[in-house]
């Protein structure tokens, strides 16, 4: 038997090492739909606790919206539960293609192809559209799913310092001898909550003949005046060659992702992207839910407007209380703690006071950059935010970090 006692002991020691280093992650069981208020069982076996959720990607509050749920029910009734197929064999319904058209209209692109997730979209897109004669130049803080997709591609790989346009330009100059150049970035960076300067990147792309790919998973639905995304915010609608995004965050919160952009690049994905060719199609129940999400978003901007107000209110409150925050204007607001154990203890203190927000630490964020990543939702009301602020301030006082600088916090807790 391969998995003998010696092997088992080795893995147990590795896992114990994670616990000793304060890097062990634990799941908490939620017994209610996703919303601003949720009921949580933590620790396992304990009584359910009602808490305010400050860490969901439920940016527009649509994860449990009754209209979306109703549309999903209609999908079950009219199109069944599952397709038992990949797309190109017998897994494409009319509603899949309808959704692809809706996404193209919303994002301002030529065509779209659905994937089971944006993780799959990012895993498949690069190898589908590039060869070993090309080069990928990615921001050093791109999402893990982009890193994985880049690793799967045979094209040359290079990076530029985070959002550093001068450094990007030097790389574009260096790689003029490659057949194609593809610059890769997040639109909104998921751990820091800052944005990529897409206007400047498009200028560089035009100057150095480079395509641009943007992962808009933390942007689609609410960035920009009408929620089209980071490209709308920076005034470059129609100028991004490839957009990948997810339906698992603002756009309903269920599952699914896509590649959207120049029609030939999308068609290359349809012909060659491995997750598209080898993974099951999105279930009809999810497709009809997402279609209703787009109905809601195109009818009014009230949800993304409310999200923007909530984010500003929250950031102001935390800043005035004396927390160290990452700067930005998105609904991702990282409260910096720098020490992994502090982040976990702080999260537990918040939970005891009825606020659910999780500590992020290595390897999810760089070593020494532990934080509580808070995320706002249009489902939050002011009373949620006020109660959450009170809990943060109370925990901040308990751990003696209010009004302290980064250096002072590290001197107390280490990093």
């Amino acid at each position, binding site marked *: 038997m391969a998995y003998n006692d010696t092997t088992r002991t080795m893995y147990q020691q590795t896992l114990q090492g994670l616990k000793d280093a304060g890097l062990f992650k634990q799941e908490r069981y939620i017994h209610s739909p996703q919303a601003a208020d949720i009921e949580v069982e933590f620790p396992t076996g304990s009584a359910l606790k009602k808490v305010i959720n400050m860490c969901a990607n439920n940016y527009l509050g649509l994860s449990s919206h009754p209209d979306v749920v109703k549309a999903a029910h209609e999908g079950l009734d009219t199109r069944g539960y599952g397709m038992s197929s990949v797309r190109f064999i017998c897994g494409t319904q009319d509603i899949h293609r309808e959704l692809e058209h809706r996404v193209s209209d919303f994002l301002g692109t030529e065509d779209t192809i659905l994937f089971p997730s944006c993780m799959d979209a990012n895993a498949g897109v690069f190898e589908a559209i590039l060869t070993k004669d090309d080069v990928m130049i*990615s921001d*050093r803080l791109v999402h893990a799913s982009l*890193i994985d997709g*880049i690793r799967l591609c045979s094209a*040359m*790989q*290079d*990076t530029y*310092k985070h959002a550093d346009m001068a450094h990007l330009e030097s*790389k574009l100059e*260096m*790689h003029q001898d490659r057949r194609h150049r593809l610059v890769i970035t997040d639109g909104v960076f998921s751990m820091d909550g800052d944005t990529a300067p897409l206007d400047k990147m498009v200028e560089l792309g035009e100057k150095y003949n480079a395509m641009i790919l943007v992962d808009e998973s933390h942007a689609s639905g609410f960035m920009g005046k009408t929620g089209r995304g980071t490209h709308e915010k920076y005034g470059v609608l129609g100028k991004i060659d490839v957009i990948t995004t997810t339906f698992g965050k603002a756009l309903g919160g269920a599952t699914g992702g896509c590649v959207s952009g120049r029609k030939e690049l999308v068609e290359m994905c349809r012909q060659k992207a491995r997750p598209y060719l080898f993974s099951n199609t999105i279930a009809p129940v999810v497709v009809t839910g997402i279609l209703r999400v787009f109905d809601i978003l195109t009818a009014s901007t009230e949800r993304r407007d409310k999200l923007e107000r909530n984010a500003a209110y929250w950031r102001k409150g935390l800043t005035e209380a004396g927390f160290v925050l990452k700067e930005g204007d998105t609904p991702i607001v990282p409260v910096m703690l720098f020490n992994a154990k502090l982040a976990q203890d702080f999260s537990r203190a918040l939970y005891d006071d009825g606020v659910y927000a999780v500590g992020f630490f290595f390897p999810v964020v760089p070593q020494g950059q532990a934080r509580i990543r808070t995320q706002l939702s249009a489902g939050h009301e002011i009373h949620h935010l006020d109660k959450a602020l009170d809990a943060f301030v109370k925990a901040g006082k308990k751990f003696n970090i209010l009004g302290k600088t980064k250096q002072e916090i590290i001197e107390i807790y280490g990093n």
Partner: protein
Amino acid sequence: MDELKDVILKYVNAEYVEEGGDPVGFDTPLISGGIVDSFSMVSLKRFIENKYKISIPDDQATPEAFDSVDKIVVLVRRFTKT
């Protein structure tokens, strides 16, 4: 010879060390120390090849060979025609 080491050290610090970060030295582990990841190694290889007009075969452009400025200098000298 010192100029070669200095040029490479200067490039590594400009390329990989973030503002406010500790500068690397000649023997600082770059790849094994997590300062240079496998993606970023390519620009280092291209810089060296372009600067010194050499071509380093892919099977010799290993993380071990690029793991410090000192080791990179050894690699450059091996492929530099004198």
